[in-house]
Every structure is written in structure tokens, then in C-alpha cells.
């Protein structure tokens, strides 16, 4: 079974963003970069499938050459067999549609039975690329999966819906986006980290893939800092009932929320 896992390197969720005033660009110096946590579920699921039925896993990403370390540690050292980095200055400012186009070009170079994504990247929270890729490749897709069973040429996926779950059958090849709960990603062992450098890692441009990324349809015009948090007010009373009455009055008359 041939599996592709499309991943993204994102700033660590503990990164402090220095943004005093609205700005068109974020100052990203000093950011620690890690594998998008949702992509780790996709990588882990691919490795479990490979361990159970054999196969080959290719990790694919779009990004600068500095993504090498993340690909080595969190994909190759965990069990992916090779990695492709699509690195091209043409992709500066690319939107989801353009990223999906170049990923499709890379995915078409091989015949994958299964293409896995994280449900979304934690930096832009967009969650569109996986589904765009499925549409552009004309493949079925199941999003937000929390359980996966493979049959012969088919799959059964559980996906989260409001207040319950949906069980979906789907033919292969297919595109899936992976949600928390699907599995518990393993850490790479130290020997595997040391050996990851021996696995093939290919750096390609858009021209190598024979694709011209379309002009961005979406432009980020401004990042704004969140509004300063208001001060906290403690509502007191002689007993719980009095405090509750006072709270209800404040919410009604002053905050005007009830």
C-alpha cells in the first residue's frame, strides 16, 4: 500500500507572538517550529497501517528548507520512508488553493492508495487544503476521522459530527483528514532519529513538478492583537443566594447579556 502524508511545519503553540499594533506581516524571528500536531495523527496512522500490512509512506510538505529537521524527526524517524519538500520562492504568499495545486502536482507523480492530512494546521486554522486536494484529484474524501479500518480496496472511517459520530464507507484511493482521538502519536526513538538522515529527502521546485502556482485568491491584509482582557470583578453577597441575585442583576443591568 502506498500512502502519502501531507504535513506542515507550524510555530509551536507556546510561541509568543509579538504584535503590539496591527500589521500586514508577523515578525516570526525566534519562533520554534514543530510538526502541526494534527499532522502527527496522520503520520502515526500511516505508520500503523504500514506496520500492519506493509507498504511505503511518503511525507510531502510545502515550505522552506528549514522544514528538514521537522520532516526528519517527526516523519522519517517515526516510520515514513521518504520525504519531499516543495520549496519555491514562487510560493511566498501562496493561499490554500495554490498550495493544493502544487501538492496535487507532487501527488500525481506517484500512485497513492491513501492520502492523509491533519484536519487543519494550528497556525492559520484554515482546514481547507486536504479537501481541496481531494476535489482537484477527483478523489473521495472523508474529513475529521477518529477511527480508520481498511478493507480490500475500501475503507471505513468514523468521523465526528455534532453530538455523535458518522461511519462512512469509501473506496480507495481516498483522501482523509485526521482528527485528535484517531491514535496516540509515538515519539521517534533516538536510534531512529540518528538513522533518519539516511532516508531519501528530495527538495523540488514548482518547475520540477511542472506546475505554475495560481495567483493567490486570498490576501492577508492585517494581523491584529487580541483586545486587552478586561478587569475581573468579584461578585459577593451575604450568602450564595444573595451573591447569585447580585450576579444576575449585574449580568442583566450592567453587562446586558441576559
Amino acid at each position, binding site marked *: 500500500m502506498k500512502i502519502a502524508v501531507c504535513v506542515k511545519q507550524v510555530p509551536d503553540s507556546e510561541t509568543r507572538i509579538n504584535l503590539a499594533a496591527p500589521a500586514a506581516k508577523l515578525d516570526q524571528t525566534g519562533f520554534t517550529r514543530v510538526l502541526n500536531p494534527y499532522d502527527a495523527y496522520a503520520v502515526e496512522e500511516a505508520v500503523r497501517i504500514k506496520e500492519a500490512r506493509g507498504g511505503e509512506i511518503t511525507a510531502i510538505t510545502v515550505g522552506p528548507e528549514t522544514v528538514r529537521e521537522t520532516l526528519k524527526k517527526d516523519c522519517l524517524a517515526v516510520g515514513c520512508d521518504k520525504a519531499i519538500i516543495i520549496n519555491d520562492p514562487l510560493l511566498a504568499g501562496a493561499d490554500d488553493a495554490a498550495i493544493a495545486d502544487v501538492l496535487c502536482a507532487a501527488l500525481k507523480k506517484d500512485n497513492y492508495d491513501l492520502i492523509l492530512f491533519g484536519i487543519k494546521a494550528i497556525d492559520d486554522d484554515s482546514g481547507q487544503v486536504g479537501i481541496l486536494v481531494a476535489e482537484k484529484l477527483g478523489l473521495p474524501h472523508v474529513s475529521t476521522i477518529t477511527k480508520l479500518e481498511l478493507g480490500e480496496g475500501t475503507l471505513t472511517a468514523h468521523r465526528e459530527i455534532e453530538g455523535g459520530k458518522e461511519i462512512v464507507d469509501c473506496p480507495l484511493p481516498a483522501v482523509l483528514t485526521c482528527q485528535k482521538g484517531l491514535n496516540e502519536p509515538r515519539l521517534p526513538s533516538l536510534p531512529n*532519529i*540518528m538513522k533518519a538522515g539516511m532516508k531519501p529527502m528530495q527538495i523540488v521546485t514548482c518547475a520540477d513538478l511542472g506546475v505554475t502556482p495560481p495567483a493567490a485568491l486570498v490576501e492577508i491584509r492585517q494581523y491584529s492583537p487580541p483586545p486587552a482582557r478586561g478587569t475581573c470583578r468579584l461578585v459577593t453577597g451575604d450568602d450564595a443566594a444573595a451573591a447569585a441575585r447580585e450576579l444576575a442583576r449585574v449580568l442583566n443591568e450592567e453587562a446586558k447579556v441576559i
Partner: protein
Amino acid sequence: MQLNENQSMIRQMARDFATAKVAPIAHAIDRDGTFPEATVREMGELGFLGLVVPEEYGGVGADITSYALVVEELSRACGSHGLTVAAHNSLGCWPIATFGTEEQKRKYLPPAAAGTSLLSFGLTEAGAGSDAGGTRTTAVRDGDFWVLNGSKMWITNSHYAGALIITAKTDPAATGSRGISAFIVETGTPGFTVEKKEDKLGMRASDTAPLTLVDVRVPHANLLGKEGEGFKYFMKTLDGGRISIAALALGLAEGAFAVARDYTKQREQFGKPIAEFQAVQFMLADMATQIAAARLLTYEACRLKDAGQDYAHMSAMAKLHTSETAMFVTDRAIQCLGGYGYTTEYPVERMYRDAKLCTIGEGTSEIQRLVIGRHALGL
């Protein structure tokens, strides 16, 4: 300090492990004095217990810098985890990998690297430690065997060890540091007893116990290196071990600093975060400066050892300065947190108790000064 790609990945992975698996249990295992068997098993699977073991014997074959990075990251979350890994690698695996015969390496290193059998080092006695001349444990040749008698103290990992390196006097006529040999003793050997675990101030989840040896018969094949050369071997072993204690102390200091920094930014008094008061900023500045110096000394010792250069004085300096820094920083961190810092609700009091071990174990700060002084004077 510039890390290469492997070192950077190893540090990040160790940090991820420490955050996910070690930090959540650090408080409870300290409180209860429980050895963390489950995380130690996981550390074996991930390679932490084979860091200094060459690949051909099932280890990682990492450089010393990577090894120190792992101990540092673990110790930011929990000193006991750092100590368990440091003692096993530096005092158990390293001497066998360095001075052992091919047969000894094949037998003892693979299970040690996998973590199925910890290794340990029995040097200290009631009257001997850094003063090796006081060694009272004896080994007498009997055909193909040596018969060991005596007792050891403060031996790390001993309840969980499959084998220990034990030093014993093999030449009763020799004086001072001469006539001492080192043996690999399997813990199941009749006459070998690991006594009750010590109840300690800090490092409470690390296993420390005395050993008793009564007519313990050890095959001659388990003599480590040459007869009578034991002193030389453990001096070299401690030179390397001190780097790992420096890394441990560095992690404790960094862990305590992070807690103090975050707390002082959030704790408000007199209408503003206390970090905005100069008195608090000066404390944090002194802590950060000491830590930066400690880090440079520690990784300079690693660099020298990795480059195959003389590192004994630098590892002693790193251990001295970093363990004293850990005492200073953990003390100041408690001060930053005030009453909260003195309670077990915050981890800094644990880090303070853990840090104290670093000024004592593998040679006290005073012994480090002797080593450094002799080097400075060319003695």
C-alpha cells in the same frame, strides 16, 4: 552554542518526552518516593538508556553533547529521571563500553541499552569514596573466581540493576589508591544483597541503597580491565560522569528559572506584576546569567570530550559551577514565589531539594575544587 541537526532533534524529542510523560508524574513520585518503572521502561524503548552505548552493542552511539542534552531536558521536569539516566549511562554503561572485553560488552551492554537491565556503579563505602584509599571491600582470587566481601553505600539504581561495577581491594599489601580492581557483579549472585532504599532529602524517586557482599563469587571473566587498575578506571569514569551531573543541575536550574519567570510576570502586588519591580528583575537577571555561564561550561566540557581532548578539569569546573548555580537558582526561585514557593503546590521546592544532590554526588564541590586546583597548579 550551535547544535547540529541530530543534536537539535534529540533535544526536541527529549523535551517532548519530558513534557508529555515526566512532568505530569514528577510531583507524585517525589512525594511517594516511587521509582518510575513505567517511564524508565519507555526511556529504554526510546534509546535514553543506550545513549553512550555504541550501535554495535544495541545502543544509540550518541555524542556526549546529545547525551547531556537529554539529561538536561529530563531534569528540567524531574531531577530523579535525570539522575537515573545519568548514573546508568555514565557510571554503568560507559566503563563497560570503554574498559570491557568484547565478551563483557556483548553480554552486558545490549540489555542495558534496551533498559531491560539497568547498570550501576558501586564505589563508595562508609570510609571510602573520593578517597579510594579507604576501600575495605576485598576480592580474593580462588581459581577461576574472585570472592568479594564488603559493603557499599549510596548506590544509584541498585534495586533495578541487572549488574553493577564493584570496586574491591585485590592487593592487600598495596597502599593508597593502588591494588584496587573493578568487577562486573550480577545482582542475582548468591551473597549479594541490595539493602533497604534510603529515605532522602531530594531525588526521592531515584533508587539509592547500600549493598552487602558476603562471599560473592564472581568469575574471573568479569574482572573489568586489568587487575589493580581499578582506581584509574573509576577516576576516568567520574570525569565523564561529572558532565552528566552538570547537565542534570543545569536542567534543574532552568526548570526553576522558568517557573519563577512565569510566576513573577503573572503575580500582582501593589498594583502590578512583581516582575516589574527591580528587586525581582535583579534576581531573575542573576539567575539567568549564572545559568548561561553554567550552560557554556557544561557544553564546553562536552565539546572537549567529543573532540577527544583532555576534559577532566573542564568537567570538574562544569560540575562545580553548575551544581552551585542550581542551588542558587532554585533558592532564588523559591524566593520569587514567596510562600507558594515553599509549598509543594509549586515544583521549585522539589527542584531545590533535588539540586542539593548535585553538590555532593560524584564528588562534592570541595573535591571538584581539589581536581581543578591540581590542574591549575600543574600537579
